[in-house]
């Protein structure tokens, strides 16, 4: 269980042509304990950069990120990251991939084994524990990647378009499964996506990010219970509003 606090965060980097690019500017964000927050924006708006800074993989140019009131400077195993690509280790079986975080933290073999079994079952991969990643489908690979993060029992899970590379049906199914896991284990989730459709199905709160420079344009609170009906009038209205917000940037430039 953990909360995320971000104060006045900016990120500037030097582009290959020598000019400075403002990737993010003046980001203030608070994610409460157990909250499911989606960051929605078009590609290139800086949402992935923001997530990578929260993960400690990149340093902000100004401002700070606090997780559980602790300043983030480098990656922390208790802040889980699920990437867009499954990033499984091809030479390790599914089981040994899921076990990886625990192994790196030198957890005793017995408790490692128990946790691995639990999370393999949770994502429905207990029958594929001894398969190598290249033998799995895209959805199964991403499930294994999620189990690998869950096995570490992180307080915060950061997800960077985790279902972006999957086909539509698998994607919908994965969203449902993720909500089920989240409702059982109730962890703080920050989920980056470019799909408004995905965000309205998942989030308690949606933050719309627009580029040049990347900033939080507006915020939506969704109180409807889950699982949500994809075609309910409420969701359609949210979807239309958010899509309109995403497009404001296009009109102003």
């Amino acid at each position: 269980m953990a909360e995320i606090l971000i104060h006045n965060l900016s990120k500037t980097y030097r582009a290959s042509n020598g000019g400075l690019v403002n990737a993010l500017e003046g980001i203030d964000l608070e994610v409460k304990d157990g909250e499911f927050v989606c960051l929605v924006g078009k590609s290139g708006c800086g949402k992935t950069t923001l997530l990578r800074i929260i993960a400690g993989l990149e340093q902000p140019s100004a401002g700070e990120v606090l997780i559980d009131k602790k300043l983030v400077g480098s990656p922390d195993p208790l802040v889980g990251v699920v990437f867009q690509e499954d990033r499984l280790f091809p030479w390790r079986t599914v089981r040994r991939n899921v076990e990886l975080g625990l192994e790196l933290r030198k957890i005793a073999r017995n408790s490692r084994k128990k946790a691995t079994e639990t999370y393999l079952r949770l994502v429905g991969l207990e029958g594929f524990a001894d398969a190598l990643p290249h033998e799995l489908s895209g959805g199964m690979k991403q499930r294994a990647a999620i189990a690998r993060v869950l096995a570490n029992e992180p307080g915060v899970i950061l997800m960077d378009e985790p279902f972006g590379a999957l086909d539509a049906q698998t994607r919908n199914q994965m969203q449902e499964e993720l909500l089920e896991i989240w409702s059982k284990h109730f962890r703080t989730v920050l989920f980056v996506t470019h799909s408004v459709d995905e965000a309205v199905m998942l989030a308690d709160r949606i933050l719309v990010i627009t580029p040049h420079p990347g900033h939080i344009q507006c915020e939506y609170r969704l109180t409807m219970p889950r699982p949500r009906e994809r075609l309910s009038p409420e969701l359609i209205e949210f979807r239309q509003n958010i899509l309109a917000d995403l497009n404001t940037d296009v009109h102003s430039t």
Partner: protein
Amino acid sequence: MARVAQLQGRQERNFTGLNTKPKGILTFVSAVIVFLAKILGVILLWQGFTLIVHSIFIPTPIQVWTTFWRLTLKGDVQGYTLPFEAWTSLMRVLRGFALAIIVGIPVGILFGLSNRTYQWTKFLVEPIRFIPPLAWVPLVIIFLHGESRYTFIIWIGAVFPIIYTTMSGVKVLDNNLWEVGRVLGASKWQLVTKIAIPAALPHMFSGARLGLGIGWACIVAAEMVGGGNGGLGSLILNYGQLLQIDAVVASMIVIGMLGYALNEIFVIAEKKLFPWQKDVKF
């Protein structure tokens, strides 16, 4: 464009061709027939060539074939049989090769992890890489004796491909996997032992295979040095001096076939050990 498409098509056929087993006895039989027909074709061309260019220095396939069996069953002038010579050479190559792995893989890993070490030693290592193994012969004759002469020549031929493929394997490590290690809390040491080295293993294996191939090809040069008895290389040299070209050609064919077999063993092992690696092996 057409060329690219053609190349891609060929690669794809390679992948599937290597992964699919013959579906029935018929496909197997036809594969054997095609193989035998290809060999027969080469032999006929060779025979035709000896008829056109009539020279005592160009042996016919039949001459080579009888010499091959004479050497295999009765042995050469010193009484050593062809299998014995081949075994002697193979052991020499394997000794040099083993030493090349022991040195090449750690050095390759070090160069891959620390670009600074590589850059600092480059002025020395790179020129040595381009000295042909044959050029070491006089020094080897002066400073080494016995079997260690062969070991050194094979070693110097095999070690560089092993160093450089290992190095590039460590260097091209997918940054994505490295990041996974970092977010899961890996220490520097763990990043190397649990990620960089296992990820580079298929490259090390390929490097070893290339090194073995070059080491094997150095065997004639190595056996010019003298110091021990026998070996396919010295067989070629001895019979070359006697102008018995049929024996020379028979030994050449044995060297080529054994090298091919060694390479195939490695390729098969690579496919079994690293089934996720999809690159073309040669």
